[in-house]
């Protein structure tokens, strides 16, 4: 692939570095349409420092260097049309009316080599195994706390600790059966875990939808690249849920529980229900009768065995959690505690994806599995510790500070991008309630090429793989690559101007 084009690369005499087989076509930062592409010390998924593409990116780079920009624009447009027509949208509520918007998708795939992925996959499986053992422990014997691995107040005082779960039997110990773990690359290019999502992770439908449109946009490249398939996810999810069914139920009825059509992830709920061939239910469809959960059908009430729920803990059962919930089902938790119905994910998982508990996960892996963590953590300062708090307050301009119980990019300060005033104000908040905050060094997420306004530009990305744990633990290759589409932005959340990309794991 390293054939040099004398017109495109007059400086081609310089020797490539040790990833020698890379390709050199349109040079980033120099040649159109890559002329606005920024290469600096941030890890770039596609390019090496010498402006050669990495070997596994070379075929894509070659294609992009030769296709007319108008052609890529046409394919991008047709992809957006397809999303709009399929209704792959989220709803933005305005003052008089609401509009449905598509989540921006960038056509250029993010590519990972099979070798690197295999290592990531092992790390993810190891991590979910440890986290499930941890949850079983804290809602059970509490060994890790007694052995001093993790402070008691951090666990039992966490916002998402649910005392109702203590002593509840969870099938196969799979507290977390559907997990979305956010990974980023550090400056050296190594994958590290940014956060775990153990409650109701979303985004898997975008992973599958992106694959559909990108395969259509680059059919030849897709075929020759030998990309690992991901289409089995719905079947794998169904098998996982089936393996959790209460004993003695031969043909368990599995349903997906949604908050309803106004939820921003509603498209995903309908998509998964259709793909798995299971009923999509709302709280108002379910009733509790004689300790069993039933759904109201035209033929009468029918028993439900497994609920894949996509509503938060708080809303599941107004008798146990939030009394004002109209989305939930009165009495549902009681049936669950008796083992008459299985709810996945279990309630109370939020304690293990808490941003402060996060700092202890490598130690927990060692404690429960006797292994070193395969995937590292981002270095984390706990503001609850006076010394670390002091460091955080003195270095607000270098750190990202996050509220412990929040998610979705809310309640955080990105120090280097904040104004002095914002830093002072946030610092006050941290001082007032240090236990609620953690801080991490600003990591410049890796960048990958995106198609923006007729040019190829580098944008920051992360990766959310989806892990399923039931009778066995499986990970579909890749996951959802999220993109911070605003130039220079590090925030990839779709609620805050992020988009996504298809992720190719090669054979």
């Amino acid at each position: 692939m390293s054939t040099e084009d004398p017109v495109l690369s007059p400086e081609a005499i310089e020797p490539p570095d040790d990833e020698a087989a890379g390709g050199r076509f349109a040079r980033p930062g120099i040649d159109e349409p890559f002329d606005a592409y920024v290469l600096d010390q941030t890890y770039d998924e596609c390019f090496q420092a010498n402006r050669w593409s990495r070997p596994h990116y070379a075929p894509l780079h070659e294609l992009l260097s030769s296709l007319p920009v108008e052609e890529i624009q046409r394919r991008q447009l047709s992809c957006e049309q397809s999303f709009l027509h399929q209704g792959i949208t989220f709803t933005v509520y305005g003052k008089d009316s609401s509009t449905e918007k598509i989540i921006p998708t960038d056509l250029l795939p993010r590519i990972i080599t099979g070798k690197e992925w295999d290592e990531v996959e092992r790390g993810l499986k190891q991590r979910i195994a440890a986290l499930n053992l941890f949850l079983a422990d804290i809602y059970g014997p509490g060994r890790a706390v007694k052995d001093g691995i993790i402070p008691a107040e951090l666990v039992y005082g966490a916002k998402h600790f649910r005392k109702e779960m203590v002593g509840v039997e969870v099938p196969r110990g799979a507290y977390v059966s559907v997990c979305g773990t956010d990974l980023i690359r550090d400056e050296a290019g190594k994958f590290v875990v940014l956060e775990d999502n153990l409650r109701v992770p979303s985004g898997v439908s975008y992973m599958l939808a992106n694959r559909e449109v990108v395969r259509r946009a680059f059919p030849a490249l897709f075929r020759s690249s030998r990309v690992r398939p991901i289409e089995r996810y719905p079947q794998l999810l169904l098998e996982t849920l089936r393996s959790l069914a209460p004993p003695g139920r031969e043909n368990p009825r599995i349903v997906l529980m949604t908050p309803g059509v106004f939820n921003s992830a509603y498209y995903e709920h309908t998509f998964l229900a259709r793909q798995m061939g299971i009923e999509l239910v709302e709280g108002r469809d379910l009733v509790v009768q004689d300790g069993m959960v039933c759904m109201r059908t035209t033929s009468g009430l029918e028993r439900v065995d497994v609920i894949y729920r996509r509503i938060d803990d708080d809303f599941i059962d107004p008798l146990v959690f939030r009394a004002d919930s109209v989305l939930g089902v009165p009495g549902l938790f009681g049936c669950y505690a008796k083992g008459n119905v299985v709810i996945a994910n279990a309630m109370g998982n939020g304690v293990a994806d808490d941003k402060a508990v996060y700092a202890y996960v490598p130690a927990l892996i060692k404690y429960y599995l006797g292994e070193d963590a395969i995937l590292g953590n981002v270095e984390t300062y706990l503001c609850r510790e006076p010394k670390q708090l002091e460091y955080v307050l003195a270095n607000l301009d270098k750190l990202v500070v996050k509220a412990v119980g929040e998610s979705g990019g809310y309640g955080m300060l990105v120090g280097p991008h904040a104004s002095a005033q914002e830093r002072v104000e946030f610092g006050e908040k941290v001082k007032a309630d240090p236990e609620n905050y953690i801080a991490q060094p600003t990591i410049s997420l890796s960048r990958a090429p995106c198609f923006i306004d007729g040019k190829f530009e580098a944008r920051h990305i992360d990766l959310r793989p989806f892990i399923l744990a039931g009778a066995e633990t499986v990970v579909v290759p890749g996951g959802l690559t999220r993109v911070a589409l605003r130039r220079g932005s590090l925030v990839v959340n779709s609620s805050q101007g992020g988009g996504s990309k298809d992720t190719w794991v090669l054979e």
Partner: protein
Amino acid sequence: MLSRVAESLYWMARYAERAEHGARLLRVRLEAMVEQGDIESSEGWRRTLYGLADISPEDPSADPRDITFRVGFDRMNLSSTMSAVVAARDNARQVREQISSEMWEHINKEYLRLTSLDFDWVWSGNPAQTFIDIGDGIWMFQGITHSTMRHGEGFDFIELGTYIERAQLVARLLDVYLSPAQDDGPKFAAPGYFDWINLLKQCTGFEAYCKVYTAQIAPRKIAEFLIFDPEFPHSVRFAVDKVQSALEQIAPGAPQTRRAACARMAGRLKAFVDFTSMDEIAAGGIQPFLASVLKQCEAIHGAVYESYITYGREEQAASQTQTQTQG
């Protein structure tokens, strides 16, 4: 099938049928208007508005443009054709995992297309064509439904919704043309030759009528055709037959008592239409006959809700309050 899903499918179908009917009435009216004088035309508009069950048939503005906007395009008017399309699509969206992707994508595309139309642009061109397109879009939706969705219980609820809506819409339209003016009702001039042709066209029945009765335009024959023809899809009888057969299929597993309530009402309506003759109607007045059809349709709607959709809700609500007070 979930009761909530059945309810959404039923309403999706009803709104789609309503949208198609509204688009057809407007299209025929807009085309007829071109050939009519002012008086004739305004009489035609009043009939159309009444046939559409428009909430304010005596609207002060008699300007065809204002009327077309209000009953065709205005999304603030919940009984406009546009609102019916939006409601059909919203119901489809709530059950999109139950209907085929082809159905969903078609109704979603129609929705996106129609809601982006600019009324000034529509009116400045050929507005009738816009309504032809809306009607075609719905027909295609109904065709895609027939071709791609399993003809199971969900489909039966769609059939039920489509035909109960159609029976009511056609009965209401016939009432406007065939019932004698009453003291409290609207006063229309006796329909003329073109009005009868428009009535047939508004029921997509002109050609079908000619095949049965030749092009001889006789009000009594038109009434007979639009009420009793067993093979014409927009006759009252055809719709009533379909309602009855859909109800036979629905919820085979439901308790017999609940099924019987619906079956009894549908059977009674079918017998009423089957065994009433045109002579009887002519003698007893057509208005009471049509009013009875409308009333029986509403009763069937109520029975379907009680038997399959809202059953037992009160008892449950009561038992939940109890649990809560005990807890």
